[in-house]
Structures are given as structure tokens and as C-alpha cells.
């Protein structure tokens, strides 16, 4: 059971039990403090080293059998993701962001072009990639513990019971769910369900975390707390993250690089280096002039896309 360690701030929302818990976890120091995470840069990553995720000339679409047409979601996308990098994708809705992440996960294949992970073509889902879903996608008939175990039990070789228990306990501690092992998802708030989803993705220690608007469905206050925690977790694990979001602030708070995707058919419009110090979940950074400049720049780019979509007219 999580106890409220800090009284101030927690009392303001005492009528909302789940929010209280979220804040409590945020306040507590369960997660190691953030250090400046080693960012891959041109200096320490020689150009000869292949990128971890390599997206080359990728187009993707969906067939409409009735109209015998094909809706092109993505066109000629080129993108490199380096090991240990946190990449955020922003773009107008329907621009093919989710299509892109589904292809990296191995759920669908591109029409043209190639997607390589570790230099190998993606044929299907693999143990090197885990995913966090917008709608949580936790198994409602399993307890929190068994939901997290789900990510370990289907792999070969399957870790021993003791090793599994240790790793699950660690993953649950990272997301602040220690004490909720025996709860069922329907007994938890939306934010806590997504913590289960994140713990499930972390527990097998995959190299790549694919996150499809993971905080899109939780309330604003919980979202802020979870972003802060997630920044700490990733600083701790050093995983490569491919992160889709609607929120410019979220992208700037978490990412090393932000990719702006154009309107449908989605293309890479711009790739932006986020040169802000970490930890960023700090009022100082988020109120800094640079943060404001970057936010305004992305906002203008997205606004242009949104207006372009209107001018073009939806068929």
C-alpha cells in the first residue's frame, strides 16, 4: 500500500483518492533521482554505427475494399533512431503516427520501403520491443502481478519463478504500484491501469519501448505526475523510446528529438533537437525561454498543417 509521505499538496485533492495516490508517488523518492542521461550525439556516436531503428522510404496505407481505393497514411518516411534515444512523434490526428508505430511493432507491413531493427528487417513482434497502449490493453481477468508476468511467461527461455518474481517486484516499484499486486484492473483508476501497462513493458527490459499516446487517456493532473516519473524511469533504465503524443509539452518534457509529421499522407516535416537540460520536469526548465521558443515553433508548424488540412478539404 502506498502511503502519503508528503502532506502538503496531497491534502488539496483529498476527495479524489486516486489523484492523491498519484501525487503521493510523484512526491516520494521511490525512483532514483535524475542525472543527466547520456544523450547520443554526433561526438560519441560515430557515423559508422548503424541506428537501432532504421526507417527507409516507408509508405503505408489501408485498403478500402468497397471503394477499391487505398488510403495512403504515410509516404516516403525516413527516420533513424539511435540507441538510448528518446524520440517523440507529434502530428495532426490521422497523420499515420500510429501506423508507423504499428509497423515498428511488427503488426503490419509497409507498402514500400524497409524498417530495420538492429539492422534486421522487421517481420513481426519481437522480444526486443515492448509496447504501451493508449487504451492500456491490460488483461481484465488478471491481477496486476499476473498482468506484468504476461510479458515474461511467453518468452523462451522463460525466466525461473524466482527471477520473474524479482523482476516483477522491481517493475512494480518503478511505476509505484507496490502493494497493488493482487488488485484487478477494474479496481484501479485509469492512471494506475496505465502504470500496469508501463510495468508490463518494462519488466522484460526490452531495448525499445514503443509508446502510443500512453498518457492520452488519463486526466491532466495524473498525466503530469506520470510524465515526471517516466522521465526518471527512463533516465534510470536508459532504454530507447519511440513515443507518440498529441501534446507538445509532453514531447518537449520527455524527448531528445521531436519529429513533426505532416498531414495525411504523413511525411517527416521536421526533426527538432530538444536542447534543454534534464531533469526537465522542473518548473525552471518548463518556464525557460528556450522551452517557450521550441513550443511556439512546433505549435506554428502543427498549426500550418492543421490549416493546410482545412484548405485541402477532407474528401
Amino acid at each position, binding site marked *: 500500500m502506498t502511503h502519503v509521505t508528503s502532506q502538503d499538496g496531497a491534502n488539496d485533492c483529498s476527495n479524489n483518492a486516486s489523484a492523491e495516490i498519484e501525487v503521493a508517488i510523484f512526491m516520494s523518492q521511490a525512483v532514483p533521482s535524475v542525472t543527466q542521461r547520456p544523450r547520443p550525439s554526433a561526438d560519441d556516436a560515430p557515423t559508422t554505427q548503424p541506428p537501432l531503428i532504421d526507417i527507409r522510404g516507408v509508405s503505408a496505407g489501408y485498403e478500402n475494399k468497397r471503394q477499391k481505393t487505398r488510403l495512403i497514411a504515410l509516404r516516403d518516411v525516413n527516420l533513424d533512431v539511435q540507441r538510448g534515444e528518446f524520440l517523440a512523434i507529434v502530428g495532426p490526428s490521422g497523420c499515420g503516427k500510429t501506423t508507423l508505430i504499428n509497423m515498428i511493432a511488427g503488426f503490419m507491413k509497409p507498402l514500400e520501403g524497409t524498417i530495420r531493427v538492429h539492422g534486421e528487417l522487421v517481420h513481426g513482434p519481437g522480444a526486443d520491443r515492448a509496447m504501451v497502449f493508449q487504451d492500456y490493453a491490460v*488483461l481484465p481477468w488478471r491481477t496486476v502481478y499476473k498482468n506484468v508476468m504476461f510479458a515474461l511467461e511467453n518468452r523462451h527461455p522463460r525466466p525461473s519463478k524466482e527471477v520473474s518474481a524479482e523482476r516483477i517486484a522491481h517493475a512494480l516499484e518503478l511505476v509505484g504500484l507496490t502493494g497493488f499486486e493482487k488488485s484487478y484492473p477494474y479496481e484501479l483508476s485509469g492512471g494506475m491501469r496505465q502504470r500496469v501497462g508501463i510495468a508490463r513493458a518494462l519488466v522484460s527490459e526490452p531495448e525499445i519501448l514503443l509508446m502510443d499516446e500512453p498518457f492520452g487517456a488519463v486526466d491532466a493532473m495524473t498525466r503530469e505526475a506520470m510524465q515526471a516519473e517516466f522521465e526518471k524511469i527512463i533516465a534510470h533504465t536508459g532504454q530507447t523510446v519511440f513515443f507518440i503524443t498529441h501534446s507538445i509539452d509532453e514531447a518537449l518534457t520527455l524527448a531528445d528529438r521531436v519529429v513533426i509529421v505532416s498531414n495525411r499522407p504523413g511525411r517527416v516535416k521536421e526533426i527538432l533537437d530538444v536542447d534543454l537540460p534534464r531533469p526537465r520536469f522542473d518548473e525552471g526548465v518548463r518556464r525557460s525561454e528556450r522551452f517557450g521558443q521550441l513550443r511556439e515553433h512546433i505549435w506554428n508548424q502543427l498549426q500550418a498543417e492543421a490549416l493546410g488540412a482545412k484548405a485541402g478539404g477532407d474528401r
Partner: protein
Amino acid sequence: MSAGTLPTTKPGADSNSVTEAITRSRWAPFRSFFITVINLTLFFVIWQLVALSEVINPLFFPKATDMFSALYHGFVDGIIGPELLHSVQNFTIGMLISAAIGIPLGLLMGGVRIVDLILSPYVWAMTALPRVALIPLLILVLGFGNSMQLTIIVLSAVFPIMVNCMEGVKTVDPSLVRAGRVFGTSEAQLYVKVILPFTLPFVVSGINQGIARGLVGMLIGELLGGGGKGLGFLLDRAGEQFDAPMMYATLVLLAVLSVGLVQGMRWIERRAAPWRDFSRA
């Protein structure tokens, strides 16, 4: 489940703890039981009073006491017992056959498109067709024997079971399937760990509907099939002999049987999917 008395919290509980113990009044769990007993007693008392007043011809509406007496003597004299046994036996075998055919075929229809395409016209035709229409054909083919009664139970129950199982597999949350794939399930594991647990409540409610339809099938088989056995036959004979108390006794017996089955299935349904808490979804 029961409304119970208002939960009261223990005084002096730690104001920082997230869970608190709840104490309820000791008789709260029995409350709904008591209400039911009082309710039913009142029902039979009013029945008795109306019958005594003879507003309705006693030939059609016997006293509740006469009905109970017919029920008692029916059991003691061995009139009801064998018929009840026959019906229950037939019904149980029919439901087992229906489940054995309906569940696998329904799951297969949900998961394999070609099976769905081949079977669905027949399944939907048979689901929609009123069962009584089949009686003449079944009598023609199978005669008046037990196999005809059994067949009509199976034909009544099997299709709702199939349709529900199929719907269950087809409505599996695509996100859960993607989660299954991303976390390394093989095709067989995906079925065992994701699709079947998701479908389980649909299977149970299919069996539930199958039971309701199967009871109807059992009765029409016994009433119209002329097999000379079962509760339906008892009902038919009591009608012909103007034995109103016996008729009502059989009806009460059938009501108890049906309610028992339906409530039993509801209990199983809750056990099968405790996570299906729609009030919070």
C-alpha cells in the same frame, strides 16, 4: 449484492491509510432471504384468499392448499417423481450434447472465417425458426420416442450457444490481441490466454440462453410429441382430466426448476468473470 445496512467505518482508523475495514450489521446478509420468504408467503396467502372467495371458477383456479396437497401426494404416490426424473435427465443430456457441439463450433465460427461463411446461413435460419415448426418433421423421422424429445432440446439450445460463442470471439478487444502478440504469444497461446478468457462470459451467457430455450424445447417435445413421459405429459394429462390442482402443481414445479437453473447460471456467471464489473468500466 444485498443492499445491506449502510457501511460504517471503524472509529479512530488511521486517516492516512488507503483501505479501511467496514463493519456491517450481522443480519444484513440474510435480509434479502427474509424478504423473499415473506414475499412468497404473502403470494400464497393472497392466492388462497382469492380462491376461497370463488371469484374465479374453482375448476380453473384451485386453492393454494389444494395445489400443495396435489404436489405432496404426487410425490408420495410416485406420480410426479418418475416424470420429473425423466424430464431432468432428458434436459441434462440434451444440454450436455448442445454444449459439446455448440461451444467448439461457435468458437471455430468466430475464429475461422471459412467455417463462419459455411455454417452461418444454417445457424441463423435455425436460430430464427420457431422450434415448434420442427415437431411434425421430427415425429415423422424419429417417431414418438425419447430420441425425438432429446433432439428438440438439442435443436433449441445449441444455436444460442453457438451464436454467443461466435460473437464472443469476434468482439475480442483488438488492443488485447495486439498486446498478446507484442508480448510474445504464439497463435495457440493467444487463444488460450487472451481470446478464450475474453469469450468465457459470452459462453456462459450462451449457455444461459440455451437453458431457457432448451426448457421450452423440452416442454413442447413432451406436450406435443405424445411420448407419454415427462413433466409436459403430466401437464397435458392433468388438463385433459380437469385436474386443476395437479396442473398448478406441475407449473409451480416447472417455475422452481427454471428459476433454480437461471439463478444457478447467474451465480456461475459471476464466478466465471469477477472482473466484468460494468459499473466502473
